């Protein structure tokens, strides 16, 4: 049988087309790996063996009769457990949704299934996508496949591990403040946060609705592009999606942007105190590669950077407190009716028992910020600060094509190191949250390893709806380097 190790979408698709492997064989390959490695790695909260094999068989029928739908038909993938999948349990990695069977699939899930993709299972993550290490999962830890004593990052840690450890070909994650890019950087895979409004959030369990976005993890840049081509587009079920040509996202990636005409902005605020020196060296070396290709490197300033993190936390906590209000033990999820004395007590006891610490903290502080007397001092102030952060990017992009910088101030940290200090965990996000505030597109691409063999990613940020450009820019680096061909030995 053909070598099935670390297949990309393009390679797997080629094998399926040539009938050198069937979708059932491919699916079984991943299911066996998951059974063997997932207890240690914690990438999946659940696997759907029967469901996946049924879809794989359907795909094989189509391939046999010459009716393969497209490049994703028969390709095994996984979905972060904050994204709903019809008739399959969705828990958001929380106990409060244990046993919850979604009555509908997220639009992005529906779209890839219409293209024949085979969903293997649901990925582990921080509870309700709140966290930067996947340590907040109420079910199990996820571990970094490059060093099992370290975190894979979060909140989409499971999705990143699944791709990095070859437990699927590609996966879906979500971002509110960097939850795709940061684990992608820590696990050496490619991760894209699309522009806010580029693809539908319908079916994504909401954390911060003005910040959330569903995105993709893959082993190479081309794979991200293949999936985006399918999921992008206006959706009547998500009124924040924007009518924008999906053909703007090409696959195979074209070379419309020659690197020698590229203007790359390096923001000085992202290279100061607190940045690990090895991370800085790796990122600067990556930027030098673009210089070699002929790009112009321009020093820029994003002057409101230091205010972006407090701004982000005030807005995301306030929005989270609203979005978490629906978990009340009435319509779905767990319910503490037996111990409750009356209806209101059902809410108190259900949420008190089944929410994790982070949900409680965010609900309390978010409520505080939005309450009478504090609304202007905190929430409204943060909304104004957000304007300034967004303007920094609007101004910068008038003179440059993209921004390059680190993703995370440090490589993967040890499990347990930051768990008891929420503020320290929040500061892991300083380089990623601005893109969510401004609603622009941004990705992380493997750029090298530290002395301890820990991955470091390069972040590329682009203007709203310019995914095509940043994917091409990322691909140019990929073609000059070998990082994307390296995989952890597990």
């Amino acid at each position, binding site marked *: 049988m053909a070598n099935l190790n670390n297949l990309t979408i393009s390679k797997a698709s080629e094998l399926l087309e040539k009938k050198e492997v069937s979708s059932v064989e491919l699916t079984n390959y991943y299911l066996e790996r998951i059974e063997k490695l997932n207890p240690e790695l914690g990438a999946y909260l659940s696997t759907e063996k029967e469901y996946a094999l049924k879809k794989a068989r359907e795909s094989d029928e189509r391939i046999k009769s010459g009716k393969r739908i497209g490049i994703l038909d028969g390709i095994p993938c996984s979905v972060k457990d904050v994204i709903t999948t019809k008739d399959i349990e969705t828990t958001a990695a929380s106990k409060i949704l244990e046993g919850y069977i979604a009555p509908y699939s997220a639009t992005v899930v529906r779209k890839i299934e219409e293209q024949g993709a085979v969903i293997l299972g649901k990925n582990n993550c921080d509870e309700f996508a709140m966290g930067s290490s996947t340590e907040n999962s109420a079910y199990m830890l996820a571990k970094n496949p490059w060093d099992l004593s370290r975190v894979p990052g979060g909140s989409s840690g499971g999705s990143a591990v699944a791709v990095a450890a070859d437990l699927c070909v590609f996966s879906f994650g979500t971002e509110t403040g960097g939850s795709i890019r940061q684990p992608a950087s820590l696990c050496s895979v490619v991760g894209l946060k699309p522009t806010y409004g580029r693809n539908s959030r319908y079916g994504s369990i909401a954390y911060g609705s003005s910040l959330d976005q569903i995105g993709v993890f893959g082993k190479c840049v081309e794979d991200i592009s293949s999936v985006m081509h399918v999921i992008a587009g206006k959706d009547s079920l998500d009124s924040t999606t924007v009518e924008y040509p999906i053909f703007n996202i090409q696959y195979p990636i074209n070379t419309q942007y020659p690197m020698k005409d590229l203007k790359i902005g390096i923001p000085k605020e992202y290279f100061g105190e607190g940045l690990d020196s090895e991370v800085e060296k790796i990122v600067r070396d990556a930027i030098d590669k673009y210089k070699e290709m002929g790009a112009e490197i321009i020093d820029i300033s994003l002057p409101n950077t*230091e*205010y972006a993190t*407090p701004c982000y936390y005030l807005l995301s906590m306030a929005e989270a407190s609203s979005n978490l209000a629906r978990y009340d033990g009435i319509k779905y999820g767990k319910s503490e009716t037996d111990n409750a004395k009356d209806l209101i007590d059902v809410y108190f006891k259900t*949420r008190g028992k089944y929410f994790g610490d982070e949900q409680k903290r965010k609900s309390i*502080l978010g409520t505080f910020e939005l309450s009478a007397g504090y609304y202007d001092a905190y929430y409204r102030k943060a909304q104004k600060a957000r304007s300034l952060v967004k303007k920094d990017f609007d101004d910068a992009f008038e003179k440059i094509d993209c921004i390059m910088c680190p993703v995370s101030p440090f490589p993967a940290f040890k499990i347990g190191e930051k768990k008891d200090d929420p*503020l320290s965990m929040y500061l892991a996000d300083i380089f990623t949250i601005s893109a969510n505030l401004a609603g622009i597109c941004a990705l992380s691409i493997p750029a090298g390893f530290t002395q301890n063999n820990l991955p470091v990613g390069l972040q590329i940020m682009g203007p709203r709806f310019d995914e095509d450009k940043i994917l091409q820019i990322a691909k140019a680096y990929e073609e000059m380097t070998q990082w994307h061909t390296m995989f952890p030995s597990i």
Partner: protein
Amino acid sequence: MISKDDIKYCAKLARIDLTSEEEERFYNQLSSILGYCEKLDELDLAGVEPIYQVTGQINVFREDVITNTDIHEDLLRNAPSREDDFIKVKKVL
């Protein structure tokens, strides 16, 4: 800044039962988080408009027609307690 009473009060508004251990622990953690967020006071925000969402879209409408098929069984099956086609809850009044 936030006080212990504020935390108790907001937990009540957010309908979350806290143990006294949680009250104590969250007081320390939330104080430091809010303290950090007060950095925004350094900004001069005079004349700056607040931003609610980044897409700039306004009033996205659709036709008011029913498009769902009959999904009430799918919806009710998740209810912690049900009777026929109703979700059962504790006495409201």
